């Protein structure tokens, strides 16, 4: 499984929670604090490094608040091709 991560722009996030509903690893949670815009932003809670950079969260985000990063080489298993987003 490739390793990845995401960055969520808190100033764009409106706290709609759609990203949490599609994350296959269930590692996106809503923050307990409010952003400057008054929403509870989505945050990545991934201490175990489970994010694969699949980009499903970014695809469904209506506010284009998520940037996705992925390792080009897999940690183990067959070599994967990273498709351009």
């Amino acid at each position, binding site marked *: 499984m490739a*390793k*990845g*991560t995401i*960055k969520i722009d808190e*100033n*764009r996030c*409106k*706290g*709609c*929670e*759609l990203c949490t*509903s*599609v994350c296959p690893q269930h590692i996106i949670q809503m923050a307990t604090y409010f952003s400057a*815009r008054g*929403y509870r932003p989505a945050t990545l809670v*991934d201490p175990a*490094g489970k994010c694969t*950079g699949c*980009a*499903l969260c*970014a*695809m*469904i*985000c*209506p*506010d*284009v608040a*998520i*940037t*996705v*990063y*992925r*390792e*080009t*080489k897999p940690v183990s298993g067959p070599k994967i091709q*990273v*498709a*351009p*987003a």
Partner: protein
Amino acid sequence: MLTEEMQVVFDYPDALTEETTHYCPGCTHGIIHRLVAETIDELGIREKTIGVAPVGCAVFIYNYFDTDFCEAAHGRAPAMATGIKRALPDRVVFTYQGDGDLAAIGTAEIIHAAARGENITVVFVNNAVYGMTSGQMAPTTLPGMKTTTTPTGRDVEIAGYPIRMCELLAQLSGASYIVRRSVHDPGNINRTKKALKTAFRAQLNQAGFSLVEILSSCPTNWGMSPRDALTFVKEKMIPYYPLGDYKVAEAVKTIAQ
């Protein structure tokens, strides 16, 4: 954790400005904006694209796209796009319209633009309700669906039946690419993106009128959470508005491959 070996695989499209949208949380307009912007980027047509904005929630779309834009009177976007395209045939002209704009006040314009086979692309966002004016019944509101003007649900005896625009427009000889898609999950978002790309490429290849209807949600006016609203699209809207290709002209079939 971000490491040096990681590369950006999903980023903000160039064709969108940095402006944050005024849409409600969970509104799928934002997803559709991104798909249109990515299509413009991938086809490399940002410098020669002219959009025509509707009246409706997307009325401020010109703030969000880094392309040229024009604001049309309610429902008249296809008429304005016709004029722009005929005056400047080398430009890529698209309209972005909601169901209240396209299927109610603008019915005549869209039907005749399609009948004339105008070489424009129409992005039709169908969320079954008038969003901007606070959720009145639209021509596309489902039978039995509650809105502010049908508080007990749309009664087809009084208010008639919803209009299926794709099926209607597919009858016209001038139309070249008429499809319906949805953005309720990532798989369907991908399919919508492909359809938008085909629609823009159809225009670039002078194939004629192309329209992509996109089933969208309106969490605020439906009175649902964003997640429930997408489930409503999947379970209630798609049975009435089946997804699919309603017309793909021979000239577009070769493009789509």
